[in-house]
């Protein structure tokens, strides 16, 4: 793949991939590492896609997998206790809703991000997260309930 093609792909999807990775990792360093790996994989795969939606969905599926890989790696399991992981979270703004979303479990955060930010349907989220539709719907439902519990009924979902 030529460099200008790679640059075009990167510029088009960098924020999408980075923000999704951040939603899962909650820190800039990991999100940037994952983003780099996703694009490395994209350029190496030299795939052709039917349309932009397919390409974006593929990138997000790889992003979700890379995020899960990072968190299940032995290195992280052995070296980053939960408390420490929470303490390195880099939440960028003083924003109650954002803080509440970031306090959810990782799978919940990812589902919320894909649904409310990327605008994906349950079926599409299921494919990206490699879950059944029922499982994806259940994750989103539980995430909403937790957000309501944290932020009260004034939260509009």
């Amino acid at each position, binding site marked *: 793949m030529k*460099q200008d093609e790679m640059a075009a792909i990167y510029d088009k999807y960098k924020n999408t991939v980075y923000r999704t990775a951040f939603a899962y990792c909650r820190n800039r360093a990991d999100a940037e590492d994952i983003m780099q790996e996703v694009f*490395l994989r994209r350029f190496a795969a030299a795939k052709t896609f039917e349309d932009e939606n397919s390409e974006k969905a593929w990138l997000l599926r790889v992003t979700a997998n890379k995020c899960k*890989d990072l968190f299940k790696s*032995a*290195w992280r399991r052995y070296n980053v206790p939960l408390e420490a992981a929470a303490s390195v979270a880099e939440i960028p703004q003083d924003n109650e809703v954002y803080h509440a979303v970031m306090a959810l479990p990782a799978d919940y955060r990812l589902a919320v991000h894909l649904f*409310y930010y990327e605008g994906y349907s349950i079926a599409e989220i299921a494919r990206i997260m490699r879950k059944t539709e029922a499982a994806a719907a259940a994750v989103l439902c539980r995430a909403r309930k937790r957000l309501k519990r944290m932020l009260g009924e004034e939260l509009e979902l």
Partner: protein
Amino acid sequence: MNMDDYRRAADSMEPSEHCRNEVLNMKNIRITRKKNHRMTAVLIAAAVMAAGGGMLIAADSLGTFDKLIGVQEKKDARGFSYDKYDRNNYEAIAENDEIPEESLSASNEKLSVSCDSVYCDGSSLLLGLTGEFYENVMKDYGSVHFDCEVIVNGKTHELRGARDWDCGFWRFDGRLYRDESRENGFSGSICLGLTEEYSITEPTVIEVRMYNIGDLNWNEPRGSRLGDDVSFTVSVTPDTALRRTPMLSMEQDGFSAKVYEISPACIMLGSSHPEWYEANTETIVYPDGTTSPKYSIHAGWYDENGNPLEPLDYTMDLDRDGCHVCPYAYADTSRLTVKWVNVQEQDENGSPKVIYEYTFDLTE
């Protein structure tokens, strides 16, 4: 208070500018995904500028299974396929592999080899191999095959052993492919499908012995062997969450089918024919007086786009619950359709006539 607050916060986040340079120049890319607890150093990938302004991805920055993506389509210098029978979906496997926490490399007088990627969902075990020949044996050849023995939980599985449930595995193959980015270098895989009894549920040390290395290509007569046996061990931590067992089944008009298992390594599917077919003795008599059976029914599986699923192992013949069971390469699909065709009869397009079909919705 609503989710727009979340959207506004997310909108404000962008990756650092240096990431763009690193990704596009492929320099100093930090690969952290597959770190293990002993590996604290950051892996640095290098970039190779290709002539004509293009860019090649540095091979060292890719995992072993990444390098095997598309190997089925590659041809060697003589026009032979590297291995068109390798049906593994290496793309799906590469997304879920791990660097083993402990792996020892090994060598003989002709080659060195190490296992640096592992995929294990408990039922399927794929070992990603890399190494180098000391002579230029892969100049003309795309692949080298070998016999192999793998010891898992005290059970020895042999590549050339019988293939049935009693032996503890349903699939076993191994090969080394020429690594185009390195002279004399190779990447490869050993694939093992384990039965329930021998499935890997806990971190386990696997012993591997490769022997008869040098069966250069399935299309070729056996050549001289490439040195003595090579043995190594690798520790494997299974991720059983990679494997779904939906156990979807249908039975209608005597046709039955089951979806046993879905993982990045394989989709395990089973089907059986109606009893009337098994007992049918009807024949077709052709004008020249020759005859053939009226029915010859075969079942095939298709993804949501109508593409046929690729069987992983043509030699496998398993029966489970009265079904003929076969592993297929992973396909990213939300539906699976099974079609029974009678190959003795054609439809209007000249294709074998479909006599029954059923679609499983995997999202339910």
